[in-house]
């Protein structure tokens, strides 16, 4: 069932059109990630769905009903903010209970639901503390607790992990995915981090300048990027995009080849190059190879055991089965 639908939704701030009219459909229970570089309009799109911003034109439908004119308080959505946005003057318990209090639930029911959420999120022993006395990760959990108690139609996450340190981010990423599996409630998640998008999403929406570049599952986007922007944005390290004679040889304006689809050898191959910087991750090593034929260095993934010294000559062979071809508008050729 289509749970959230955007029909020709657009948004302008003054004379600046941040989001040209777009359509989007989100299925019930889906984990959708909006991803794109900063300033691409992903947060604005989320805020339009939340109702925190008014649409300039178009319609937002929630559960089939037009919600365009409904204030955020009555859309039945819950939101987790980047800054956590906890109420600093309330205890954790009262923070989590706030939406229930607003909904007019009786005390006993509020208590029961808060305790339940606290148990799920490991917050039971912090219930009487103030947000100021908690760590970043705990605050984020309180924000999530405040979102889940009211059993919303959908959860909206606005870059919820970007204020956490790297280790905590991976942990919280798993917790949110786990939560989605357990609640099977629709989640819309905004991030600029394509790794978060790839690891968490059922469906990724890639945005640039307010325009949807591609919608699809993580692997669809990875295997068949619709244009050079998606090709370069999804995947880490990014896909090598080459133009010129080599591209023309494949009857394309631009060709793309991912770092893991290039074989590296010290003896023979299609392209010759010189080893630049190498990044050792342990399991893998990424080499940046300068080829005289190409303008930019190529990134190549190799086994973690492989050790090549800076400046040595190597040969590269692309795996043609995984070659992506794009026309002069940057669109994928089939």
């Amino acid at each position, binding site marked *: 069932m289509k749970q959230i639908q955007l029909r020709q939704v657009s948004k302008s701030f003054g004379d600046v059109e941040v989001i040209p009219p777009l359509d989007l459909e989100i299925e019930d229970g889906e984990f959708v990630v909006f991803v794109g570089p900063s300033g691409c309009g992903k947060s604005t799109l989320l805020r339009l769905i939340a109702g925190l911003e008014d649409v300039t034109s178009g319609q937002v439908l929630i559960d089939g009903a037009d919600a365009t004119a409904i204030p955020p308080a009555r859309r039945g959505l819950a939101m987790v903010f980047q800054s956590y946005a906890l109420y600093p003057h309330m205890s954790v318990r009262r923070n989590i209970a706030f939406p229930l209090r*607003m909904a007019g639930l009786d005390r006993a029911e509020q208590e029961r639901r808060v305790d339940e959420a606290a148990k799920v999120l490991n917050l039971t022993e912090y219930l009487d503390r103030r947000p100021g006395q908690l760590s970043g990760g705990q605050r984020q959990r309180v924000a999530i607790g405040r979102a889940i108690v009211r059993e919303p139609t959908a959860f909206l996450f606005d870059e919820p992990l970007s204020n956490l340190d790297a280790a905590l981010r991976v942990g919280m990423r798993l917790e949110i995915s786990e939560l989605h599996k357990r609640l099977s409630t629709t989640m819309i998640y905004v991030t600029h981090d394509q790794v978060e998008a790839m690891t968490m999403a059922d469906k990724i929406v890639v945005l640039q300048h307010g325009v949807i570049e591609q919608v699809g599952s993580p692997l669809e986007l990875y295997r068949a990027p619709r244009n050079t922007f998606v090709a370069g944005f999804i995947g880490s390290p990014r896909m090598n995009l080459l133009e010129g004679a080599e591209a023309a040889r494949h009857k394309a304006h631009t060709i793309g080849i991912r770092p893991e689809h290039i074989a590296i050898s010290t003896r023979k191959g299609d392209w010759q190059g010189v080893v630049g910087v190498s990044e050792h991750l342990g399991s893998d090593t990424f080499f940046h190879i300068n080829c005289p034929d190409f303008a930019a260095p190529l990134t190549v993934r190799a086994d973690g055991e492989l050790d090549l010294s800076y400046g040595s000559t190597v040969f590269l062979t692309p795996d043609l089965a995984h070659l992506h071809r794009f026309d002069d508008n940057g669109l994928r050729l089939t």
Partner: protein
Amino acid sequence: MARATTFRQKTITTIIAWTVAMVIFFPILWIVVLSFKSEGDAISTPIRVLTSAWTFDSYAVVQDRSDYFKHFFNSVIVAVGSTLLGILVAVPAAWSMAFVPSQRTRGILMWMLSTKMLPAVGVLYPIYLLFIELGLLDSRTGLVIVLMLINLPIIVWMLYTYFREIPAEILEAARMDGAGMRAELLYVLTPMAIPGIASTMLLNIILAWNEAFWTLNLTAAKAAPLTAFIASYSSPEGLFYAKLSAASVMAIAPILVMGWFSQKQLVRGLTFGAVK
């Protein structure tokens, strides 16, 4: 890096600071001293003022001649009343300007402030006529309304500055959590702004307490606050220094004590947003 200060520099700045403080404080000290003297001693040369006998006579006479507590009570009602009413009006105003600004918000704020630059006497005539028409002359209600209006720009500006420091995301979170506008103002914004609201109230009580132009012009006997109480002892010939001083001390003492106890809050309020 801490600034290196020598002992000499410290001594000099300390002396300068104390000198400035004493110059500012001296008139008040002088009033206090004079209030404990007889009228004869009060107008004599400075030396005799300090050596002559101390007496409570002036206080007794002042209390006997004019009812201090009636004026005190009026001052309290006018200061507190105008402040509470002002807060009630200014919180929603500052909220809308801080969180839902429009292109004209800046202009409106400046315009509100500009009314403070108008000489009060310029609007005395129309307001006086209005007061006659509405039967508000010499009434505490009238004073509360006028003092609220004249201090409103300051209250709105101060609250606006405080509200600007509150992250908008927290209010948005409240909206997402199902809070309507009333709940948002009542349960989220106001509690978070309590330090700011408290400083604003303190400052406004002091301003309203000290306000003399309107309180003197719009009252006679019934609603006269302490400013009128002092004024009734001032005479052009200046022959009643001791009584005037005693009346002044009685009028400023309550607000001085309040200011003393709340100075931390006040300083915080006045410098809020200045340093970040």
